[in-house]
Structure formats: C-alpha cells, structure tokens
C-alpha cells in the first residue's frame, strides 16, 4: 500500500480520490464508435423491412443528420462541463435537479439494456456456431453471463485498459466493413453488386420512410456516450469534441458502406428481416475467409458495445450517487483502479436480468426511447445554455456552428422519430413515458430531500445571464 493510501485508509491525510485522468481522443473515439458499431452489423436492416432500400437510405442519412446535431450540441456543452455523468452533469448545471435525475436514468437504462442486448447477441452467435458445427440447441445463457462478467471485470480494473481493448476490437470490426465493401468490387457495378435490379423504390410509400426512422437510429445510437468520459480525459476541451466528431464521421462512413453493400447483394424482403445482415452479405459473396472475418467483426462489435455501455452506465450511476440523488455509497472510487467500482458491480445483476427476460425486442425499444428522450432534452438544454451563458461569457473548447439551426433540426427529427416509434411500438412508448413520470414523482416526493442542493453547481462559470 502506498504511503498516501495508508494515510487515507486510516481516514487522514486530507486526500481526495478522483477518477483517473488518462484518456485521450483515441479512447473517446473507441468509446463512442465502440458502443454504436454493432448497429451496423444488425438492427439497421429493419429500416429496409419497414420501407424498402430507398427508405433505409433516407433514414440512414436523416438520422445521421440528427446524430450529427447531437454530436455538435453535445460537444459544445461537454467541452465546458468536465464531469462524469455527461448529459446528467449538463442538465444539473443548466436545467435543474429533476431533469438531471431523469436524464441520468435515461442514460443508465439505455446503456444497461443495450449491454444486455449485446450480450444476448454474443450468446446467440455462440449457439449458431455450435449448431453449424453439429451441436444444435446450445444454451446461450452461460455465454451471456460470461460476456457481462468479463467486461464488467475489465471495467472494474481500469478505464485505460477497458478503452484500449475497445479501440482494438472496434477498429477490427470497422475494418471488416471496409474489407467487405472492397470485396464487393464497387468499381465494377453489375459484376457483384446489383443495385439496378434490387432497388425497388418505396414499396410502402412515404409512410414506410417515416416508419424506417425508428430503426435508422441503430446506425448511430450511443455516440453521445462519449461525454461520460469527460472526467477521465486528460484534456476535456480537446479530447471530447475531437473524439466525438471523428467518431461521428466514422459512423457516417460505416453506415453508408453498410447500406450500399448489403442492398446491392441481398433482396430487400430477405434483408429486412435478417438477424445478422452483414454476415449474411459476406456469405452471399462466398469467400470463406471474408465470412470468417465478418463473423469476428460481428462478435467484436457486440463485445465493444457491451464494454462501452458498462463504462457509461456506471459513470452515470456513480454521478447520481456522488450527488446523493441515489444512496451515497454508489459514489465510491476504487483506491487502486480509480474506477466507480460499486456502480459497476451493482449494475451487473441488472444487466443479466434484462438479458434473461427474453424480451429483446422490448428491451431494445425501451433503450432507443430512453436515448430519444435524452436527445430531446439536448435541444432545450442547448437553447438555455446559449441564452444564459452566451458566447464569450465562458471558455468553450468547441462552438457548434449555425446555432440554432442544429437544435431546430434535432427537435424536428426527434418528433418524427417519436411518431415512427408510436406507429410500431405505441404501447412501449406510452409505458416508457409512464415509467419516467412515476419515477419523477418518486424523486420529487421521496428522494430530492437528500440532495445537497448547494454543492451541485461545480463548474467555475460566472453567474448566468438574468440571475
């Protein structure tokens, strides 16, 4: 035990434990892209089922615009709020405690449910592999639990090793998409790719385009998670905007390549209901090493996503504990690994129980809706942030351009996506809303009295305009 730790263990020394500041832009990229890239390997293709190939491309780019707005707006605020909890810390400083509590819950539930879904994907991949090798009926549960336990252990041991691993497996997964694109010989149209025969216009009309928007979120869902690393980056002002924006560019490229190759090789009726569309696309090409590479890419993307979501959910939960929105014990930092170890441990059984419900569809929809509520919050948050702390009043690491156009665009696209979700999952949408209303009432009546109101505003900002 180091001298400082020995003194601290005795309760003296006056030292504080902080999360370790070791991350750079590459780690931020690995966190954001790592969480999202699994959406390129599965899930996005339901846009094709909802509205056909053209609707899928419209959803890919329109939702890409939504997330570009999210990344820009988020980067500006986070470059000034160097705190774990990301959007929670933003809401706490700019809107108020009730909004902050809700935003943190959106984050924790969205990420923990996504983690469960990712682990289920790994379990299913193992079961499919076993079936193809002559062992049908393999129980995926041990592999679901192993995925969650192993990645939680990695997160428990340190943020640097967690995101270094995430960088390697995310990069390999991204590389598999690029290799698949070139293997399809895009320079020789008609030879391998047959868009001319497979593009069928809009089989369900424009309502199919609207319906596709909900699943278009799969291309990018989670990039906003980069902000959870704010307290652990060496230079928040530089690393957060750089990592987030390069991550968003990577995803726009990956999404477009994914759409292009898959829709040039698979009929839309099949693609629209495939469980592993990119893997199926590789199988159609009939190149064994490429099929193997895409299998690895699919597995790595799911692992990277689960790894990143554990990181993000635990930071949001930790922040709630630190500010006494939840029991204070969750705000503990590990004295050796400098991680929010109790929050990581507490969320393991929560993720496993989500994974064992078997309601993957509902779990994912709840996760997406929680994310969407968070994006809607960002629009109000940004307007208030610019109004109360105009440009020049505080030092910003990044200033997003054309304000308020991105905020207005984001709000309109959020409303369109709510409508799309209502079309497909109206009851889940209403249940989600009801859940957050009930939990808000609970927070107001029973929990808010424990919050230390005076110590919440931690950023060295001047008094807001109008106060």
């Amino acid at each position: 035990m180091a001298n400082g730790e020995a003194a601290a263990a005795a309760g003296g020394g006056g030292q504080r434990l902080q999360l370790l500041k070791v991350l750079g832009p590459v780690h931020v990229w690995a966190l954001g892209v790592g969480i999202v890239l699994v959406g390129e390997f599965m899930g996005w293709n339901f846009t094709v089922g909802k509205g056909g190939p053209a609707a899928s491309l419209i959803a890919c780019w329109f939702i890409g615009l939504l997330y570009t707005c999210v990344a820009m707006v988020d980067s500006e605020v986070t470059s000034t709020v160097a705190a774990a909890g990301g959007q929670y810390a933003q809401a706490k400083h700019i809107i108020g405690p009730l909004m902050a509590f809700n935003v943190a819950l959106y984050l924790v539930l969205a990420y923990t449910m996504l983690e469960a879904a990712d682990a289920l994907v790994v379990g299913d991949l193992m079961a499919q592999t076993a079936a193809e090798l002559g062992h049908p009926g393999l129980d995926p549960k041990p592999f679901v639990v192993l995925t969650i336990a192993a990645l939680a252990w990695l997160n428990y041991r340190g943020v640097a090793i967690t995101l270094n691993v995430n960088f390697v497996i995310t990069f390999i997964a991204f590389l598999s998409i690029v290799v698949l694109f070139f293997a399809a010989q895009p320079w020789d149209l008609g030879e391998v790719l047959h868009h001319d025969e497979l593009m069928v216009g809009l089989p369900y009309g424009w309502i199919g385009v609207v319906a596709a928007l909900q699943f278009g979120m799969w291309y990018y869902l989670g990039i906003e998670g980069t902000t959870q690393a704010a307290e652990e980056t060496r230079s928040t002002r530089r690393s957060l905007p750089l990592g987030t924006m390069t991550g968003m560019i990577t995803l726009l490229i990956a999404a477009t390549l994914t759409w292009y190759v898959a829709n040039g090789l698979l009929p839309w009726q099949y693609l629209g209901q495939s469980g592993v569309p990119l893997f199926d696309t590789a199988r159609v090409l009939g190149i064994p090493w490429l099929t193997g590479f895409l299998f690895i890419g699919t597995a790595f993307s799911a692992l990277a996503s689960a790894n990143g979501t554990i990181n993000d959910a635990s930071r949001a939960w930790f922040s709630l504990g630190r500010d006494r929105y939840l029991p204070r014990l969750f705000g503990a930092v590990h004295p050796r690994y400098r991680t929010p170890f109790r929050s990581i441990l507490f969320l393991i059984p929560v993720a496993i129980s989500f994974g064992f419900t078997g309601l993957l569809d509902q779990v994912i929809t709840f996760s997406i809706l929680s994310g969407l509520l968070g994006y809607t919050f960002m629009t109000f948050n940004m307007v208030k942030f610019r109004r109360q702390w105009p440009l020049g009043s505080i030092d910003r690491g990044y200033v997003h351009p054309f304000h308020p156009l991105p905020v207005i665009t984001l709000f309109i696209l959020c409303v369109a996506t709510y409508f799309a979700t209502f079309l497909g999952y109206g009851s889940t949408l209403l249940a989600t809303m009801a859940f957050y209303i009930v939990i808000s009432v609970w927070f107001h009546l029973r929990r808010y009295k424990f919050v230390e109101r005076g110590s919440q505003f931690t950023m060295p900002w001047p008094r807001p305009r109008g106060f």
Partner: protein
Amino acid sequence: MDFWDILSYGAWIVSAILLIWMVVDTFKVGAEYSEDYLLSSQEGEDIIPEEDNNG
C-alpha cells in the same frame, strides 16, 4: 460430454470466478479504507495524490 458442453460449464465457472473476485475485492476495499476516503471524489476537482497517478 462433448466440447460444447465443456465450454458451457467453463463459461459458468469463469463467470463465477470473476464475479466472486469483484465482490470479494469490494468488501476488502471497504474493510481496508475509510468510507470517507472512498467517497471523497468531488465533481470539478482534479486533485490526485501524485504517487497514485500511475495507472
């Protein structure tokens, strides 16, 4: 018992070891360090003991 059955049991065992390790470590840390120290993190503060800032 074939390879896949062994792999499944292996997954359960490794999961249990990792989970138990984390639970035991959490209790050990709680016993070794004062609660005030473990909860001393504050948002917006970057004060880190120099000897511990090695990773």
